[in-house]
């Protein structure tokens, strides 16, 4: 599943570690989501969407 997480993070000039801290997950999790190796749970997807003020569909694209 494609996602715009890396782009959104770059817009805010956050490191993966900073984003991970805001989401209360590990840096490895942020990296795995960004590189599309891991699809986050619905609750984490909601957390990400709320943090960036977007809808889930705007960030994640099932293709």
């Amino acid at each position, binding site marked *: 599943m494609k996602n715009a997480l890396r782009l959104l993070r770059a817009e805010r000039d956050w490191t993966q570690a900073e984003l991970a801290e805001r989401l209360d*997950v*590990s840096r*490895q*999790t942020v*990296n*795995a989501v960004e590189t599309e*190796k*891991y699809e*986050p749970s619905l609750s984490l997807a909601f957390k990400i969407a709320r943090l960036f003020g977007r809808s889930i569909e705007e960030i994640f694209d099932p293709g």
Partner: protein
Amino acid sequence: MTTPDSAPQRHARYDLVVTIVWVLTFIGTRAFLDHDLQQRLQLAGWIRFLVALVPVLPAALFLRAVIRGIARMDELHRRVHLEALVFAYPLAILLLMTLGLLQLAVDLPVEDWSYRHVWIYLPLFYLGGLALAWRRYR
């Protein structure tokens, strides 16, 4: 002035202490139950039985620490551990089943294939599973 330890630091310290206590009690018990030493000491069977059970409590505390540690992990880490278990569990069954059948077919020397030799393969399978699972997400 020293700052109080954070929860993760406290957990890590507790986990380390429990692990060290478990490993030391296991090594100590194995050394104590060594055949040659027992020949010299000539201890009663019930004493040897009790000594053999000494590592059980530290091992139980270690397992509880592992379970709590996994519960504190985020979702990706929990998934990695689940995948490691999915890898390790069937391998453990395969190993025990194969050894069981081999035992019927040939004389497996107990000095090489007793419980105390075989159990170490189970955490090794788990560690192998962890390494494989992490490769997928790195």
